[in-house]
């Protein structure tokens, strides 16, 4: 399969590869996918006291498009508040990376990873006391 330039760029120079401390209460971790399906994404975000994402890291097992989608996702979430980050749609990833139809699931997985990381950090933040913006109803 021929890849678009942006996919190749993210694949060859992935942004924000790595891991954050998953036990840190300001870090949310989202792991989505399954090895037997051929792709697993781990996306982590770190927020400040205003629930703004100050750092993001990823690791991905998957095809070039999956790696590019998660690399792009980390770029996009940085600097956004959690609520803003929730608005990122997989279709925007498809458009930005010019993913072909068979690779759309990679973008869906990246969106799922963002959401999973946000859910995780919200759960942590709202469980602990004294965190600004804490809302108890989010605890599940």
């Amino acid at each position, binding site marked *: *399969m021929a890849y678009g330039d942006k996919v190749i760029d993210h694949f060859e120079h992935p942004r924000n590869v790595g891991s954050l401390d998953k036990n840190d209460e300001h870090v949310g971790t989202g*792991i989505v996918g*399954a090895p037997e399906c*051929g792709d697993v994404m781990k996306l982590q975000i770190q927020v400040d006291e205003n629930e703004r994402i100050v750092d993001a890291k990823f690791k991905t*097992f998957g*095809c070039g498009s999956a790696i590019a989608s998660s690399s792009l996702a980390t770029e996009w979430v940085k600097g956004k508040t959690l609520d803003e980050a929730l608005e990122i749609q997989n279709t925007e990833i498809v458009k930005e990376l010019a993913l072909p139809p068979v690779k759309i699931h990679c973008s869906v997985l990246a969106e*799922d990873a963002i959401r999973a990381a946000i859910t995780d950090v919200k759960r942590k933040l709202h469980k602990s006391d004294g965190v600004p913006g804490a809302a108890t109803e989010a605890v599940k």
Partner: protein
Amino acid sequence: MRRIYLDNNATTRVDPRVLDAMLPYFCEQYGNAASRSHAFGWEAEEAVSRGREQVARLIGAGEKEIIFTSGATESNNIAIKGVAAMYGDRGKHIITQVTEHKAVIDPCKWLEQRGFRVTFLPVDRNGLVDVEQLKDAMTDDTILVSIMYANNEIGTIQPIGEIGRACKERGVVFHTDAVQAFGKVPIDVNELGIDLLSCSAHKIHGPKGIGALYVRRKNPRVRCEPVIHGGGHERGMRSGTLNVPGIVGLGRAAELCGEHRDTEPASLAKLRDRLKDGIFAQLDEVYLNGHETQRSASNLNLSFAYVEGESLMMGFKDIAVSSGSACTSASLEPSYVLKALGVGDELAHSSIRFSVSRFNTEEEIDYVIERVVETVRRLRELSPLYEMAREGVDLKSVQWSAH
């Protein structure tokens, strides 16, 4: 950019000696081999007859037992559907196995929808069928056994001689798809008890679009109903004007394999083993797919744990290989061959098939080793699975989210 071709089980570069042999048959000796009335036809007929001899000699057959086709897919179709149509009144049972090429599986499934019963034998972890199980599966209703010689994905070579004997004992016609073995493994159809054998030119440095089917003429005489009708060429089993340049190319390619039969398989195996040893020496958690020793000299199929096949190929895109990963298939399913071995789906996704030819060099292999090792290392650093495994997480115990 430098490019290295290591996908020789998919197709091969035409050998210049093959091309040289073919060229006169396009613009000079372009006659129809069926034209009996002039020299153009006689020349073509002579070329076809030489091609028949060259193919026959490579497998210990008689020249009258070779039928030219458009390739091995057609050969397999004639063998399977043709035997079913010819012997269908004697029985309705066919035995094959799960890792066959689709060109065998699909005709068998087609027959299944038309009143035939097909047994798909399982294979073991190395891709081998169990001959005892094959014997047990045979009934008085069995008319055909079709078992491939060497597997196209994993290179495993089946116990063809034993299967041939088992078929002889029961009077069952034995077909083998020998595409990956023809020209690479010494084959004698009489010693091995093969009744029908499919082969193709483009896997042995011949042109695409030409193949052959060996059809036994005595002990027993085997006949196939044609799939293509119209003129009764090729003993009535395959009508259509003969592809004279293609036949010349197939013949010459077969002849070259014959000339190099004492040295070439060994030198292919040497390249293959150099690649394997070089990779294994530098990377851990690499798994060989297929049989360790009973395998085609050209084929090396490896799974690189924790990295996905398509991303690997993208990482060394100057090297042409193929993968059993779902991402490289239209169906988004990982290789059914690897799944049949009981290799987990995750290792199927991580598989790469390297296949060497006479045109590869040791220097190329060393470059490939270097590129593969660096790409696997880079992608493992990117892999959450590698990280989890190193932290001691048992990946099988993780509750993954299906998607």
